[in-house]
């Protein structure tokens, strides 16, 4: 392990070397600080009733815990961030498995957990080829292991649920961790996390202001077309503007390319949200869990990242080659 690798993985002193990270941290901290004041002011002015104020305050309190838990690993170093994403993947998969009933299938569930572990390993190791090979290899394991129990009744359901869970929470979410293998990953990850989470909040606000026609009432009765367009537009502006600073000097720093990145975050973020709503509707539950008061389960909050992470990863990689930085492989490499 050479010094550059060690620095990228563990060096906390690098946290704020990038000015974008520094300024975004200040902005986010101040937003969290003034949020309760704004909520109280709106309540005083009679714009929100007591029930909604209570709900907003509950959400704000959850954010006070969530934001540091998301930001600190990114700031601390690549190793912490990658392990953090691995834990997030496992927790998200757990909620999915408990909601769909897949957790009763011991072998399939165990293989998905092992697959998520393997993904996390390849990401830390920076072994891109194995990272790309793992989805198909893990699927081979799942479909064959499920044959061995000799219960063809419900085979497709077992295997289908396991593969979907592994692809969404192991592979797709795993891409978020892989960003940390590029040298200046902190601003990129910060931008994506912040834009994806703000996308939800933009949708909430613009939906309240302009939302009339329902977007997909069967799937998610509260989503409106106005909210969706409003959120996508605001997210697009945010990503394109901040992206200009994050990707300065790279081929991605072109208005057209940045707008496309903004569209990816804005549209796929909302699609991830609707994806989870569809799962919940299909199963017939309201929330995935009770971990985050005001939000529901962990997945209710991180659903929008699931699709954004791989799409943004490969889009940025197309211009910037995130996946092939000349770092040595840490555990399996010779260097």
């Amino acid at each position, binding site marked *: 392990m050479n010094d550059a690798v060690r620095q990228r993985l563990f060096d906390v002193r690098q946290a704020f070397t990038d000015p974008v990270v520094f300024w975004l941290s200040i902005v986010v901290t101040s937003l969290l600080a003034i949020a309760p004041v704004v909520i109280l002011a709106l309540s005083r002015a009679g714009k929100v009733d007591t029930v909604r104020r209570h709900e907003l305050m509950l959400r704000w309190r959850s954010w006070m815990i969530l934001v540091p838990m998301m930001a600190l690993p990114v700031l601390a170093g690549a190793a912490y961030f990658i392990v953090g994403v691995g834990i997030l993947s496992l927790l998200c998969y*757990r909620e999915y*498995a*408990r*909601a*769909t*009933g897949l*957790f*009763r299938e*011991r072998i399939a*569930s*165990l293989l998905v*957990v092992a697959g998520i572990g393997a993904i996390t390993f390849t990401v830390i190791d920076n072994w891109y080829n194995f990272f790309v090979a793992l989805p198909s290899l893990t699927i081979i394991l799942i479909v064959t292991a499920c044959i061995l129990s000799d219960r063809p*009744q*419900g085979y*497709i*359901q077992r295997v289908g649920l396991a593969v979907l869970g592994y692809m969404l929470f192991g592979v797709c979410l795993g891409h978020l961790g892989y960003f940390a293998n590029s040298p200046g990953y902190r601003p990129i990850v910060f931008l994506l996390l912040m834009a994806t989470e703000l996308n939800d909040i933009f949708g909430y606000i613009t939906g309240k202001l302009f939302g009339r026609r329902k977007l997909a009432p069967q799937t998610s009765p509260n989503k409106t077309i106005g909210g969706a367009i409003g959120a996508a537009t605001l997210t697009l502006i945010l990503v394109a503007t901040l992206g200009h600073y994050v990707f300065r000097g790279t081929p991605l720093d072109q208005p057209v390319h940045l707008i496309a990145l903004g569209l990816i975050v804005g549209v796929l973020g909302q699609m991830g949200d609707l994806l989870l709503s569809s799962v919940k509707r*299909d*199963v*017939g*539950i*309201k*929330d995935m*869990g*009770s971990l985050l008061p005001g939000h529901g389960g962990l997945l209710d909050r991180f659903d929008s990242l699931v699709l954004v992470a791989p799409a943004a990863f490969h889009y940025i990689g197309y211009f910037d080659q995130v996946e092939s930085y000349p770092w040595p492989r840490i555990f399996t490499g010779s260097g």
Partner: protein
Amino acid sequence: MHDWKLQPARDLGLPLSERLRSTHRESGTGELLAQLAWWGAARSYLKLAHRVDVIGQANLPKVPPFVLIANHSSHLDALVLATALPGRLRGCVFPIVAGDTFFETPAVSLFAATMLNALPLWRKRAGRHEMADLRERLTGGSCVFILFPEGTRSRDGAMGRFKPGLGMLVAGTNVPVVPCHLEGAFSAMPPGSNWPRAGQRVRARIGTPQTYGDELESRQGWERIAADAERRVRTLSPDAPVSTTDQ
């Protein structure tokens, strides 16, 4: 064609403290791994320190559900019974334990729920509702219950009377009740002692299963079941007069 059946966890959405104490609790992959580790350790300990000897394992039904009952005189009893069951049943074995002992403080309930996979029964308020919940769990799913019908550990090692609660679980169902007699656990770890005494041998004798499908769901029926189960456990005791009825 086989339709998809998506059935969420029965304890979905419960806050952690309630989830641990819920009789609807279902454990996932993480808990299963913890249980495998715990029961593996318990099995090795019992084999090494108490030379546990299980007789009549062939009497155990091959598939759940069934109820394994025994005389109760030691904290080791549930460990001996659980480790006597084959490993493939791990994850569907639920010791029914006293809520007032194992589910009062958060740390102990976390241990009882995750490691032992125990379900609580509050002795003071075990009403029809609680028993109905457990009965539904037993008949509806693939569950093995480990139950001590005396309701408490014997203070002198002698077996006490069986309570009718067992009958409430199985009356009118086809769930087999498997009697088991435990010997030596009282000397190894009597009530009041904090640590087991290594070297004391423990022996478990498993008898033939019995179902109570024709028995009435009434006080008399439950008491008849309890009396019959008690007799079946007693006949397994080495001190019992040789019985010819069960063979």
